[in-house]
């Protein structure tokens, strides 16, 4: 037989149990959760040495936020790279779908694992070419299974030879 | 698996009752004249061979010179589905009878099509815009809306 109020008391016991247990949440600025190696952060890692300026990433982008300006060298050889003048990514409009990373045939563009890029002005969210050149080269393994195979965890600096499927 | 009734399955059953409603010219899909839509829908719902008790999905496509409404029907009892289409020629003052009294599930879907495509459903109980506000210029899903 069911006693009136037992169901409600069962609920009380559940909450009492949790009162005595450690919490699940963490204190964000002090403690950060570990992100997975595939985590799509809101920055990008770009290896200028690997990039040919083919603009495949810009074509793949659903929003068209990647801006690439290139020019050929004065005496351009067939098959050699373009010179890249501008490579901007407007992360203010980016939705971090990683289609550009998937599309890149030369493994030059990677997702980064940073998630603390909040800013006061929308224009500051644009990652400029210089920022891409000088930024930390910690690519995530999103669409880069070759990095996972070597056990890379997304937290080390990789140079342009290690980051790609083949060395230059 | 849900049995998808093709045109070949449906037409012989329909022709007996509705000789002139079916637009037999089109090759791939079953087209129905807009004037007889209501009776055909009732037939689909009540006929023991169809028993289409649910209007699964109602959509509209803008083909510049005509609009095409696609009625996807579903019979939960017999686990079969059927599709028929209605063509509306022209771009202005498009009207088609509502099927809300046959399947009430059409209520919001017809309002959506009215809102975004500009096809007006007559006899609909509440023919108002659903997403956009009254007085919004144009119908966004039309191909000429930029």
């Amino acid at each position, binding site marked *: 037989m069911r006693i009136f109020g037992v169901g*409600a008391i069962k609920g009380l016991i559940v909450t*009492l149990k949790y009162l005595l247990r450690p919490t699940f949440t963490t*204190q964000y600025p002090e403690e950060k959760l570990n992100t997975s190696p595939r985590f799509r952060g809101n920055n990008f890692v770009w290896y200028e040495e690997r990039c040919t300026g083919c603009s495949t990433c810009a074509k793949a982008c659903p929003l068209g936020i990647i801006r690439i300006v290139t020019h050929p060298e004065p005496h351009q050889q067939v098959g050699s790279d373009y010179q890249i003048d501008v490579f901007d990514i407007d992360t203010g409009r980016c939705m971090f779908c990683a289609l550009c990373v998937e599309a890149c045939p030369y493994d030059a563009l990677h997702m980064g694992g940073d998630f603390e890029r909040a800013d006061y002005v929308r224009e500051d969210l644009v990652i400029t070419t210089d920022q891409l050149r000088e930024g930390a080269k910690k690519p995530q393994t999103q669409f880069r299974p070759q990095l996972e195979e070597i056990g890379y965890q997304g937290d080390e600096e990789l140079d342009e030879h290690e980051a790609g499927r083949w060395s230059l | 698996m849900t049995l998808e009734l093709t045109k070949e399955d449906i037409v012989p059953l329909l022709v007996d009752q509705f000789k002139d409603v079916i637009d037999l010219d089109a090759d791939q899909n079953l087209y129905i004249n807009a004037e007889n839509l209501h009776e055909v829908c009732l037939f689909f719902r009540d006929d023991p061979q169809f028993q289409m008790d649910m209007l699964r999905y109602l959509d509209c496509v803008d083909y510049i010179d005509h609009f095409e409404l696609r009625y996807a029907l579903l019979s939960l009892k017999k686990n079969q589905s059927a599709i028929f289409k209605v063509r509306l020629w022209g771009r202005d003052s498009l009207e088609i009878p509502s099927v809300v009294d046959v399947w009430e599930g059409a209520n919001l879907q017809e309002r959506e099509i009215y809102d975004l495509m500009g096809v007006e459903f007559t006899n609909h109980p509440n023919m108002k815009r659903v997403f956009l506000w009254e007085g919004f210029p144009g119908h966004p899903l039309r191909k000429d809306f930029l």
Partner: protein
Amino acid sequence: MWAKWIAKMQTRLFNIAVLILLTPVFLLVYIIKEPIVYYGSLNILSGINFFIGLFILVNFLLVVTTMLTFVERRLVARMQNRIGPNRVGPFGILQGFADLIKLITKEDLVPTLANRTVFSLAPILIMAPVLLMFAVIPILPGFTIADLDIGIFYVVAITSLGSLGVFAAGWASNSKYSLYGAVRGVAQLVSYEVPLVLSICTIVLLAGSLNLNQITGAQEIPFILVQPLAFVIVLFSVAAELNRTPFDLNEADSEIVAGFHTEYSGTKFALIYGTEYLAAFGWSVVIAILFLGRLEPGVGGFLILMAKTSIILFLFFWFRGTWPRVRIDQILAIAWKIMFPLATINIIVTGGAILLVQSLFNLKSGTPLGLQPLAIIAIINIVLFVVLLLVLPLIKGLGRFDDELKARGLEIKGGN
């Protein structure tokens, strides 16, 4: 012109008005209760010291209120796997004060179409009765501001005035949400006053007095053991009166946003919000005094009282952390169809039991009951409590969910 100026100044001078209006309230207590009874060795409450005492009391209460908001948030947060506020001060204990400062420095908004006078007075009307309630609450044996002979009656009477403020707030806001909250609040309060008073009556029967000091003195056995049913009824009636879960209908946030205080902001909101916790504290002290045994003298006694109070407060916080809210028709049904009959049964049984022990032990009516008579009444009442718990689900209508679910082949899950 003149009225317009008043209306304009009202909001600006609101903080001063609170102080000015609250002072006569305490003066009133001082005048009504003349002479004030001074007890024992702690004869500090005389003349100007009376006001110093009041100052200490009111400030103590305000600090308690601010702390309670923090304590509730921390406790409920832990029930929800969260940490809760922990940034302001050590462990976040200053969170309440930070909130208070934030609220006081905020703009004091009054809706354009609100009735400004009533709108501004309502928070005071809500707060004043709760502060007045503390006048009769004994902290130590015989240590009260006003040792009224009708103490518990005074508590019940004065706290129900709070609903006037709730209704004033809801009506003056000129908001539909507020009006709904206000109407709900009044309906709820009127319903729950009845079982509350009936249950307290049993305590009065046992103690033979309305005086809170004498009620505590009569507790040879804590009255929670003598009157378990009355304790449960009082606990839930008080929850309804305090608008706490599961009866927080007049500020049901998921239905009517914030109920009667939807339109309040700044200091006025701080008053209303603080009153909620102040009233919870006050009623918890009253319940602790009524049910949880005697008062002990000295600082230790005060701490014991606070510990008892904390237990009751924790119950309220715990309910809030666990249970959802009932519907308006259900809350009234619970009051009139369950609690009122139960309270009536309880008072009849207790009255009978008292007559029985009086004839058994040859006690004159009016003399305090001793330990043994109380024990006998306790046994009778505990048996009654258990029997009622078992019988209640059999009553048609109360156990209807079980029947309905069984008919559908669904058992209520959640065993083990």
